[in-house]
């Protein structure tokens, strides 16, 4: 047992932290949108995938500096978020009376419509670009090793860490220090009340989608370049893990989702070390099950009954 406490274990913890941050990147946008609409946006994983493809397209056509790629992808994410809201969510928000807002049927319809958009987008991408992995120009890959003694960190891991930290801090600043953030929190807290005090709920929801999808798309290209994988199915598996992190974190707590995502990543890496990689998913879902059984409102959720 003692020989497990060596440099490889530290490396394994680093791997797990990086993997957890990947989940966290996706979970942040996921949770933001859930907080406002109370509906899971299943198309978030596809925004992530489209962000990666937008970045790849920019790299292939323009070969811009890496920073410009991120800006272009952010812009693409913004547009995609607005589009997604228009196509999958707006049609189910025609009524603002209390009964419609609390209607489970409407919420389920919205959830299914985002799932449908997700499947259609993924299949269309497979049809047009093919299901196989895209080649990424070597110069853009975020795989340059950074040697710290016997440990090796990839440049992408540093970027993922910085991106996740920036996203998290910016979002906290936006939510708690700006007027837009105040409105988002108001809509999230009580949509009818927000409407009554004169907040343009539609605009706020669109803005939330734009911000959340921007983050999703940027995560897509960063993770794509870091793992060397860009393909139409890429959003699915990390999307599920981010969903698990969001549920464990209590559905509407962004810090909770981030912490849960990191815990998931660490558990996966360590379970690979102590058991085998085949078991790591079992451990993630086991954690989810335990959370749901013993902490039904998540580890960091508000102590209020959800309608």
């Amino acid at each position, binding site marked *: 047992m003692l020989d497990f406490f*060596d440099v*490889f274990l530290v*490396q*394994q913890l680093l*791997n*797990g932290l*990086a*993997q957890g941050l*990947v989940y966290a990147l996706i979970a942040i946008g996921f949770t933001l949108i859930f907080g406002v609409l109370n509906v899971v946006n299943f198309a978030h994983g596809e925004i992530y995938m489209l962000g990666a493809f937008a970045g790849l397209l920019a790299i292939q056509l323009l070969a811009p500096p890496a920073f410009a790629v991120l800006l272009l992808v952010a812009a693409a994410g913004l547009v995609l978020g607005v589009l997604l809201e228009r196509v999958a969510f707006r049609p189910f928000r025609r009524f603002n009376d209390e009964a419609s807002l609390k209607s489970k049927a409407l919420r389920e319809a919205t959830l299914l419509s985002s799932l449908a958009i997700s499947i259609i987008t993924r299949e269309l991408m497979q049809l047009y670009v093919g299901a*196989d*992995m895209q*080649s*990424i120009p*070597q110069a853009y*890959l975020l*795989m*340059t*090793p950074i*040697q710290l003694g016997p440990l*090796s960190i*990839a440049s992408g891991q540093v970027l993922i860490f910085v991106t996740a930290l920036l996203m998290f801090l910016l979002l906290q600043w936006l939510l708690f220090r700006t007027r837009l953030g105040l409105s988002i929190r108001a809509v999230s807290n009580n949509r009818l009340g927000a409407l009554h005090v004169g907040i343009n709920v539609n605009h706020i929801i669109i803005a939330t989608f734009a911000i959340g999808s921007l983050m999703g798309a940027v995560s897509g290209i960063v993770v794509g370049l870091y*793992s*060397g*994988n860009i*393909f139409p*199915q*890429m959003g*699915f*598996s990390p999307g599920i893990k981010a969903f698990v992190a969001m549920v464990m974190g209590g559905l509407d707590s962004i810090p909770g989702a981030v912490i849960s995502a990191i815990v998931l990543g660490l558990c*996966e*890496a360590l379970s*690979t*070390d102590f058991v*085998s*990689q*085949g078991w*790591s*998913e079992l451990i993630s879902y086991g954690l989810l099950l335990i959370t749901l059984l013993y902490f039904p409102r998540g580890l960091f959720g508000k102590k209020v009954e959800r309608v």
Partner: protein
Amino acid sequence: MSAASQYHKALIIAAFSSLSLSAFAAPVAIGYQAPLTGEYAQYGNQFRNAANLALDEYNQTHKAAPVVIKFADSKGDALEGVSIAHKFSDDNSIVGVIGDFSSTVSIAAGKVYAETHLAQLSQTASHPDFVKISPWQFRNIITEAFEGPYNARWISQNKIKKVAVISIQNDWGQTASKNFAKSFKDAGGEITALESFNPGTRDFRAILTKVARTHPDAIYLALMYEDGAALLQQKLQLGFNVPVYGSSSMYEKKLIQLAGPAAEGVKISTTFTASSKEPNVQAFVKAYEARYHVEPSMFAGQAYDATRIMLNAIAKAGGEKASREAVRNALAATKDFPGVTGNTTFDPVTREPAKNLSRLQIHNGDFTSVAN
């Protein structure tokens, strides 16, 4: 029955058989069943192209006793395959059958050939049960049970004692890694880790770190080229510098495109490479391209060799006088047959093929042949 009447009967049979040979000397035929239409038509048509090429080459040198090939379209359907098998069995000119494409259709048809005693040689059916149907089934494609041990011997010949195995968690990956690990241990080597990953995994750093802890001298990969590309890149980033050997499933140009410099030095064994420097492969590729205007794939190579092995067996079994049984026995005696997919030997008991695979190493962004 008296001895005299037996003698008469034998005389009559002899007379008839000599009559059928001289007066009705129809050319002997090979039955070729393959999916020429339907979902797998692209494979069937490659088989037909390659078989016709091999046949024309044979008939040019055997003008006295030419052979014909009768093609039948199985549409990739097992029922269709069975009715073709009945048709071929009833056709007295057919002394041997090649096909079908998939193991499913080959096995369904094979059960008929086992009854009617007609030799069947599949160019691609790799299911373990296929050659177990009867002594009349042969195949020209190697299976995991051959490739794993072959690679294990290759690695031990290179004086590597400790190997870690990483494979994909599915039927194929498990068979491939177990076959490899068993033979490597039998050859006196040590397996430091036997790891598998769930299909869909994209981050291999955790597995690589775990494997690195066991200090192997080399890694053996039994996975698809896309997983391989991601794994190789992450391995390079982690600074885990050990030689890599891979299963033939990684033999794909896309591997190099995806992994770039991370793929350098990876060693893979495979049966057919169109870029091989072997003169017979070059001649085949040139002739195939001249006739069909496309580079032959591994499938075309398999069919070309299967046809030539069958023609060779017919020639050895007496050419135009060949009987079905003689053809089967000649097939079973195939030894070191020089083909474009390697030299082929059929095991006389199991009828599984053995080939000397070509060894490749990725060097300067291309697959190049290496001796060891």
